[in-house]
């Protein structure tokens, strides 16, 4: 509570310093992904006078489409670090003025210096959240926690496996399973063979957390690829889900908050980003199932047994994580073609 008050005071100071009026800021994000949490918005409006309106996207490609065809429509946009080059290539973002984001000082240095977010000495996105793409098991049908990603290829789970219908994610998981660097895959044939062997194991592909939860709740699956924050949320809602970081490692990702070049409410946008990386906001979000915070102070403020502190904060786990770098459009299309051919052969 105290922290929240502090944050409110800090934001109010920013507000006064910049002499800004109450603005309406428009945020472009996935639905239900932090920025539209009821508990965060009301106090933000109270503290700063700015109101927040949301628009949503359902894929990074749609986000890009919306950004480029709606100049001036958005003030804050959530972008995955791996997609920053695509957005920056079209000059769609403006540099972040870190002096207006007081909480930026607490952002973990590794994230703050991320190559995808920093171009020519300017920061274009404030690291906000991060997490892992790995596997989650149905703890009501698998009693012993597997240590290897190869559990997905195990005959015992034939017809009870699922992965996301996403070419890049599928290829990178197969790269992990074949012991390769996900950002520099040398042996694509091995990846293709590995995915080909996975196909008969699969019950269905999932596309969204909604699918995932429903299929798991209906008892259709034993093991499926999943995101760490989502696994937390599913478990919190009572599903028998356990997130696993296997020996082969996991895919790490980082989400940043950015300000479009065409934004006209730049100060309010910065104030909102500052609010979003505040530890007070994060603690409350984490209680409802959230990805890990890129803010070191926020992570440290979590209870000791919190998944995002206990597992993701574990140096042993961190050593196994391969952070996802931007994938060239060329590779993306090649992965998709291979993935479609594999699926079409079913």
């Amino acid at each position, binding site marked *: 509570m105290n922290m929240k008050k502090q944050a409110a005071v800090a934001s109010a100071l920013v507000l006064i310093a910049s002499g800004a009026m109450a603005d309406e800021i428009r945020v472009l994000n996935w639905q239900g992904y932090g920025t539209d949490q009821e508990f965060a918005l009301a106090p933000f409006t109270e503290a700063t006078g700015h109101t927040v309106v949301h628009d949503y996207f359902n*894929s990074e490609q749609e986000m890009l489409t919306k950004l480029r065809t709606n100049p001036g429509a958005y003030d804050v946009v959530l972008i995955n670090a791996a997609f920053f080059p695509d957005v920056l290539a079209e*000059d769609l973002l403006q540099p972040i003025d870190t002096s207006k984001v007081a909480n930026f000082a607490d952002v973990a240095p590794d994230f703050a210096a991320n190559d995808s977010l920093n171009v020519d000495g300017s920061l274009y996105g404030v690291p906000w959240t991060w997490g892992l793409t790995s596997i989650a098991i149905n703890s009501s049908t698998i009693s012993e926690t597997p240590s290897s990603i190869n559990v997905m290829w195990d005959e015992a789970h034939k017809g009870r496996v699922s992965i996301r219908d996403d070419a890049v994610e599928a290829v990178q998981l197969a790269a992990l399973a074949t012991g390769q660097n996900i950002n520099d895959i040398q042996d694509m044939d091995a990846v293709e063979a590995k995915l080909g062997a996975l196909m008969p194991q699969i019950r269905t592909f999932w596309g969204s957390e909604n699918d995932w939860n429903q299929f798991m709740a209906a008892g259709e699956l034993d093991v499926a690829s999943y995101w760490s924050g989502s696994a937390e949320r599913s478990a919190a809602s009572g599903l028998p889900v356990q997130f696993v970081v296997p020996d082969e490692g996991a895919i790490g990702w980082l989400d940043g908050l950015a300000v479009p070049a065409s934004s006209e409410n730049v100060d309010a946008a910065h104030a909102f980003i500052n609010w979003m990386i505040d530890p007070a906001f994060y603690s409350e979000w984490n209680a409802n199932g959230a990805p890990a915070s890129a803010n070191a102070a926020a992570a440290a403020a979590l209870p000791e047994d919190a998944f995002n502190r206990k597992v993701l904060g574990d140096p042993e786990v961190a050593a196994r994580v391969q952070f996802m770098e931007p994938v060239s459009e060329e590779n993306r*299309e090649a992965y*998709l073609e291979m993935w479609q051919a594999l699926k079409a052969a*079913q």
Partner: protein
Amino acid sequence: MANILSQDTRRAAGLLTPAYLWLTVAIFLPLAAMLYFSFLSDVPFGPEADWYYTSENYRAFFETGTYASLLWKSIKLGLTVTVICVLLGFPCALVLAKVIQGRSREALFLLIILPFWSNSLVRIFSWAIVLRGNGVLELAVNWVLPFDIRLGLMFTPTAVVIGLVHSYLPYVILTSYLALQAIDNSLIEAARSMGAKRLTILWRIILPLSMPGLLAGAVLIFVPVVGSFMEPRILGGRFGTYYGTVIEDQFTAVFNWPLGAALSFILLAVVLVILALSSPILRNART
């Protein structure tokens, strides 16, 4: 004669212009832009956009067998769904038009279209709840039958067909009804009084006269089903890859509008060719 023709044309233009002007602004011109994109190597956005004219997006269709085999799979799906819808829906329309009398007919007419007013995504997920293992259907069947039965319908091509038939059945029922209801009952009575058998009446009078409605319904089913992607994705499981899902991927998984557009226009061309080829056969069937 020429004068009458031009008067016809003028009158027709008056009635047609609002609708087709609307379609031009909202559909034809945007699709023309897409058609243009389908001949580019990359979308022409951004300050450093790098693109050139090419036919490689259309060639891609022929270079791997994937797209052609998926299109064939989708056409078969379209035919299956259309035939099932016609077989289920036409008798239903016949009963509605010729057996049911009075006001209950209007009520039933409306009841048939009402399920259409629900959201398709919600509808598809409801089917998932019905079809999945331990879902409503299996529970119901096992409640009736004494022994344990596993239907295993979910995540199969059958589930896709069930979902699509449900989504498109009202089209063929209503268009057939519109034509059947217009058939003069005295015509049927006259045939009957002359000793024509029921089957003969159906085959020689009812079917030919209701053919325009039946065909309109069939076309309204076949055409969109070939490009469908939502039902296959959610209900088809690992068998749910169809031509429509591959097109969708070009817009949501990668930023390849040119290829997605080219695949769409190939779909359009193939569908139009199928309709053109089948129209003389169907016209012959009418007479």
